[in-house]
């Protein structure tokens, strides 16, 4: 048998989803590129950074940007560029860990609230209301003060808990509303009739269907977490000296001397803005890509 004349089969071009994403969402791809650059800086800080992040140099206090110190030095003579590169480590670690923690806990609460409904749902919603109407800084402050410092691998675990807590009700609300819609679908009834346990229905039938909002919230919150960490560190409630962190670079001596040595604050602020910008851009495009109806 020969092919029918007059019909040309056009092969369907199946691009890799990553490439398709870049073509459709150039802004998102740009965000992703910045995120990748940050990851490389964070992982390879030991090799990339020109100086020691804690290296004090009293001969070069508040030195202006020059060939030796591209972005100048701070009031201890420490190289600003080096501290920004190392700061990416703190920002990414705190950003990712706290938003993963916050989103996972929020998603569990959201799904449970939607699935069980009734009195449990009502109680959970009230507790979430209390957390929502609490000023974020107070919440973060109280959590970090009560738990104290608990440093594992150079990262303060309690700071992560403090930043994750305000995210929980937001994620719970979005995931709950997605899960509520799914709960009414016939296949959930079918699963229940088949005698599956609650856990099985939740994890095998509901959770896979709320991953899109979950992923979107997660990426959106990394940027917010980095911003919150910077604000807390700025107020002296987050990361503490001498750990290199972007928010910390804007406070203390920097706040006193920045009118004489503006490079001390300009570049760390640019780093914070660029990082948060990249995550927001990527998160936004991911939402348009996966599920444009979700409102954050």
């Amino acid at each position, binding site marked *: 048998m020969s092919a029918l004349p007059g019909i040309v089969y056009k092969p369907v071009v199946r691009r890799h989803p990553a490439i398709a994403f870049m073509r459709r969402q150039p802004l998102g791809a740009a965000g992703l590129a910045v995120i990748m650059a940050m990851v490389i800086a964070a992982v390879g800080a030991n090799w990339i950074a020109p100086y020691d992040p804690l290296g004090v140099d009293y001969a070069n206090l508040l030195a202006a940007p020059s060939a030796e110190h591209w972005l100048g030095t701070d009031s201890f003579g420490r190289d600003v560029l080096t501290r920004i590169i190392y700061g990416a480590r703190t920002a990414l670690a705190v950003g990712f860990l706290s938003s993963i923690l916050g989103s996972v806990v929020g998603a569990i609460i959201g799904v449970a609230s939607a699935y069980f409904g009734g009195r449990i749902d009502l109680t959970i919603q009230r507790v979430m209301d209390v957390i929502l109407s609490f000023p974020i800084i107070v919440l973060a402050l109280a959590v970090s003060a009560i738990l104290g410092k608990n440093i594992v691998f150079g990262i303060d675990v309690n700071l992560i808990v403090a930043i994750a807590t305000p995210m929980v009700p937001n994620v719970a609300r979005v995931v709950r509303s997605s899960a509520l819609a799914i709960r009414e679908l016939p296949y959930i009834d079918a699963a229940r009739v088949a005698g599956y346990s609650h856990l099985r229905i939740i994890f095998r039938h509901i959770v896979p269907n709320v991953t899109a909002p979950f992923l979107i919230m997660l990426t959106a919150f990394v940027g917010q977490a980095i911003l919150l960490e910077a604000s807390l560190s700025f*107020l002296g409630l987050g990361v503490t000296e001498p750990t290199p962190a972007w928010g910390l670079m804007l406070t203390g001596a920097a706040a006193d001397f920045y009118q004489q040595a503006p490079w001390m604050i300009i570049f760390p602020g640019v780093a914070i803005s660029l990082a948060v910008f990249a995550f927001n851009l990527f998160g936004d495009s991911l939402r348009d890509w996966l599920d444009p109806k979700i409102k954050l």
Partner: protein
Amino acid sequence: MLRYLTHRILLMIPTLFGVALLVFFMLRAMPGDVVEVMFRSEGANVPPQVIEEEKRRLGLDKPVPVQFVKWMGGVLQGDLGYSMWTGKPITHEIGIRLELSLQVAIMATILALLIALPLGTLSAVFRDTWIDQVIRVVSISGLAVPSFWLGMIIILVLLTLFQWNPPLIFTSFFENPRENLSQLIWPALAVGYRYSAVVTRMMRSTLLEVLQEDYIRTARAKGLRERLVVVRHAMKNAMLPVITVTGLEFAFLIGGLVVTEQVFNLNGIGKLFVDSVSRADNTMLQALVLLVSVSYIAINLVVDLLYAVLDPRVRYR
């Protein structure tokens, strides 16, 4: 309507009680107290009787649940108590600072709406053109730039370009509007940028949704000019969610000014908050948290009620 209102106000009670309970016990769980902070500068030279005496005066010697009941009793009668640090009534301490913070928040809201409504509309109308891309980048940056850093940059720019620093002493708007505005417009700008970004994004996304509606097609089909379609039919219907975010952001501003007031050296609610934290002034902190929570919940309620006024389809029972 009245039933709905009573229902909502009744629902506020458990939430606020939860907030009060949470903040009270959280603060008590924190290490150190106000007496310790007060005498810290004097080293070990303070005799224990003096410390005991001071603790008794502030009621810190009683068990925590007893303190809570006593505090709640006062709050229910409208008495927030006295600052543990200054000894003055809390309403007085908050009152002298509220004007400043409230004014910055209101100015930031006005700025944000002035920027956001036109930008969000343009972005939606010219969807996916370069205008939209530019506005999207500007508004996503607004969410990314830390407002305290923006504040520092504003001060830096004023200093290098004009050799001028904003005045440090607060003058009431009603006494000397010029002096007042020249001090407060900068922090309002610093927080207003982020605020406008949030509103712009909401305006864009709801307007995009509304522009898909049948009545927009009808309006176009009957030959209405595009400008009128957008302004009279689309924008009006896109306002509801925009009002919601504006309200919520306003409520958060009262708490969010904490960092910005620090940068501009403003003696407002935010600075009071940070100072009270370092002084372990628990009575003051409880009052401030309650204030923010009450305003957050109240603004939420007002927003929901506005819905019913603005949209005849919304009826509350």
